[in-house]
């Protein structure tokens, strides 16, 4: 055997070993989900006596799914989560990209640099520091809790600094000033220039910001639980928490609820995984 062949063979063996290690780790990562899925289709007795079996001794049941759906009020809750996530995301993109635009184009104006620095600095503030005053001001003094709009606007307020920072980078490096000047000469107002010329060029950043924020909004628990305390306004995480508190002994039912809570985003991931992985990477590396 020549040196080259030997090296190639060693490499091949190394790859096989790495592949096996990956597979084992992957199974460990997925196992909890798998356990949830198999227990959805078991009767209550089987989930307690034998949670590990693929199919319970009492056979297969489809009852847990519709039961959990009804008790969790799934479609209402899903609708709330969807409305809140979609509107918060759209508003965040519009509001923060516009802010970034004006801040980039007025870099020598002290006021803009001040706002910019203030937003960057604020990113280190954890939510725990703001939750008491938020509840105190918006719950006590103004009494605007228990409205979806309040939560949506709060979401936007919290994300605007990070999103603005990302759009700031994109506009500064990717949008030449000459392009805007040309649009102005052609008779565009600033508003038209922004929406017709600049914004369409920001698509990659829009995708990144949308993915990161939509995931955060969809999964957010603490803020919605403080803002939305009425049952008919619950989002998926709050409803899951409430559901667990009531039915924690009925494992099959709980598993069905957990699966319901996970399914929408998992289905979305199957179709959009390339974009989600790219978006999250871009967001993390820039942020």
């Amino acid at each position, binding site marked *: 055997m020549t040196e080259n062949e030997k090296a190639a063979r060693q490499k091949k063996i190394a790859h096989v070993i790495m592949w096996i290690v990956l597979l084992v780790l992957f199974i460990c990562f997925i196992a909890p989900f798998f356990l949830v899925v198999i227990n959805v289709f078991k009767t209550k007795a089987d989930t307690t006596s034998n949670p590990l079996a693929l199919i319970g001794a009492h056979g297969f049941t489809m009852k847990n799914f519709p039961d959990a759906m009804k008790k969790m009020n799934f479609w209402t809750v899903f609708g709330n989560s969807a409305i809140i996530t979609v509107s918060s995301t759209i508003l965040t993109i519009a509001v923060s990209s516009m802010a970034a635009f004006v*801040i980039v184009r007025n870099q020598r104006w002290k006021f803009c640099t001040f706002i910019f620095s203030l937003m960057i600095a604020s990113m280190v*503030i954890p939510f725990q520091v703001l939750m008491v005053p*938020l509840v105190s*001001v918006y719950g006590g003094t103004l009494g605007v809790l228990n409205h979806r709009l309040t939560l949506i606007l709060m979401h936007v307020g919290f994300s605007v600094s990070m999103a603005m920072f990302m759009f700031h980078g994109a506009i500064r490096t990717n949008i030449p000033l000459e392009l805007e000047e040309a649009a102005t000469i052609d008779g565009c107002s600033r508003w038209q220039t922004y929406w017709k010329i600049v914004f369409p060029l920001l698509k990659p950043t829009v995708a990144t910001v949308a993915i990161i924020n939509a995931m955060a909004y969809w999964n*957010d628990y603490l803020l919605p639980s403080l803002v939305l305390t009425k049952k008919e306004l619950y989002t998926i*995480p709050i409803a899951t928490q409430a559901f667990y508190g009531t039915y924690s002994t009925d494992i099959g039912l709980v598993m069905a609820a957990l699966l319901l809570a996970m399914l929408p985003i998992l289905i979305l*991931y199957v179709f959009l995984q390339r974009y989600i992985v790219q978006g999250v990477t871009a967001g993390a590396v820039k942020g």
Partner: protein
Amino acid sequence: MKQNTLSYKVKQYLMFAGPGTILFFCVVIIPFIYGVYLTFTSWDGVSATKPWVGLTNYAAAFADKDYWAALGRTAIYSVFAVVLINVLSFFLAYLVTSGVKGQNFFRSGFFVPNLIGGIVLGYVWKFVFNRAFVALGSAISGGTAPSILSTPSGAMLALIIVSVWQYAGYMMLIYVAGFMSVSEDVKEASSIDGCTASQTMWNVTVPLMRASFVQCLFLSITRCFVVYDVNLSLTKGEPFGSSVMAAMHVYNQAFTYKNYGLGQAEALILFLVCAIVGVTQVMIGKRGEVEA
């Protein structure tokens, strides 16, 4: 030119950045300042008056043994979780960039836990620890195995396991980006100079992706320090309050025991600790950054 007058600039600013600035101030800046004010009052959350009490809340926060126990616990949890998250995610990133078959599939697979919120993940794992592991343990030992969630150290271990599982895939993506940013030329040059594969790895690749380490450490530290969702759903602070993390303690202090001023003072201390640790880490990390 009308474009240089102050009123034009202000108009432009309000038109484009007005909504963002207003929301940002309403949700972040004003509550932050108001929160600092609240720490000097003994507000109970209901009454209209907020009696001024000076530094009493800070004194109470420093004397609150439960709070410092929670903070200490959070520090221990964070150290273990951060180290394990980064070791595992670096290892995963190495494996999924090595050119093995199906690496993109694995990449997306390891990321799955990140898609799902902490509340749901916590309940999934609660089931795994309380039922699946117990069933497995009982089958092996023949008797009834206790759940690891029923002992204080077990509950901590469980929290660490879940956090590592939750964040490893996310940090992996950052390390993958780091690995990809190191160009093949540099690695080739080092191997021509006689480096073995592992020497290239530790002396060339790793120093060049220092930024990824700084990034991942910062993200994992800041996230672990304020862990709440998983804490609430997985252990709820039990057994006997032995797994109450700092964020949960703050929440309970303010919303359960209605000591808003004290809770806010404790939140502010948590923020300072978190900010100091995070910023120090970034400063140390940036100092030795290597440019390729």
